[in-house]
């Protein structure tokens, strides 16, 4: 590993979901309903934390540590 901790190009993971429940399918929020505690658990597994965040009507974006 480099002295800086830099290990190379990013790794990118994209996951798509669908809901069988018409109510869920029509729901505008879907995964955006995940509470921050759940996201933090996911990011703990990835060894990252949120350092900055922004969102709009369509989606939420988080800048992560690392």
């Amino acid at each position, binding site marked *: *590993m480099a002295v800086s901790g830099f290990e190379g190009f990013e790794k*990118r*993971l994209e996951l798509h979901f*669908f*809901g069988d429940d018409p109510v869920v399918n029509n729901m505008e929020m*879907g995964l955006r309903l995940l509470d921050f505690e759940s996201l933090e658990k996911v990011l703990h597994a990835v060894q990252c934390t949120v350092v900055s965040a922004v969102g709009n009507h369509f989606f939420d974006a988080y800048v992560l540590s690392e």
Partner: protein
Amino acid sequence: SSLFVYPTKIIIKTCGTTQLLKSIRPLIHFANNLGLTLCGCRYTRGSFIFPKAQPFPHTHFKEEVIYIEEQIPNNLCYRKASVMPSKLPSYSWHVFTASDQTYMPRFALKSPDVNFTVEVCMTELDRNLARKFFKKAGDSKTGDSAGKDMTALTGVDNINPGAIICDFAFDPCGYSMNGIDGDRYSTIHVTPEDGYSYASFECVGSIYDDADDIVGVLKRAVQVFRPATLTVSTTSTSHEVWTRVAHAMEPLGLKCRSCVMDEFPAAGSIVFQSFTAARR
């Protein structure tokens, strides 16, 4: 590193190691609790620069694929793993996709996939430009505040003037930003240290956009860094997009060294192009 959460899509992109694969199982679990089922998965990365630094279970692409396949449910039965080569040594593009058999018609009926994703990896950045991504000595600004300064100083805010930018400067150097513009994201990550300087840019476009739009965005993004070497991966159902990419790079003095294409079930085609500076 960045995380994007849409109603039915999550994108996580991390610098460094492949620990992000450990997010698959908890994300599936939390999504299931919301009544959502995984129907598509795409994992991409460039070549490891420091392969021995990668932790188990992700030390080689084959092992990464095995690990992902263990995490995703059996309904994602259309699977493909591919290493797309380039003429530049140590610059290969690694892709794994998996999709549900119902994924394509569902997705197509709901919203035809008119969007494309462009992932740009830049190395050997112009030293003077890379220097702008170091915090000033003795600077007591927060990461948010210093990030805003870097965004303005480097011209990142001109790449898409219509985007809302969320930026962060790391200590003592390095920078990340996410841009949001309607339903589209863009993101930049920078490691500016001389000797292994690196920057990435990723954005989303639509095949219905004016062809000049993506060309302009890519030009402006690359000019922030003026790299000696650059790779572009374009994921699209349209075969026309990658030609726009080449047209964007050539006026910047970047010569296309290789171009390979591969088809992935439900993910469309991925075109991987590599460029080097004709002159510095």
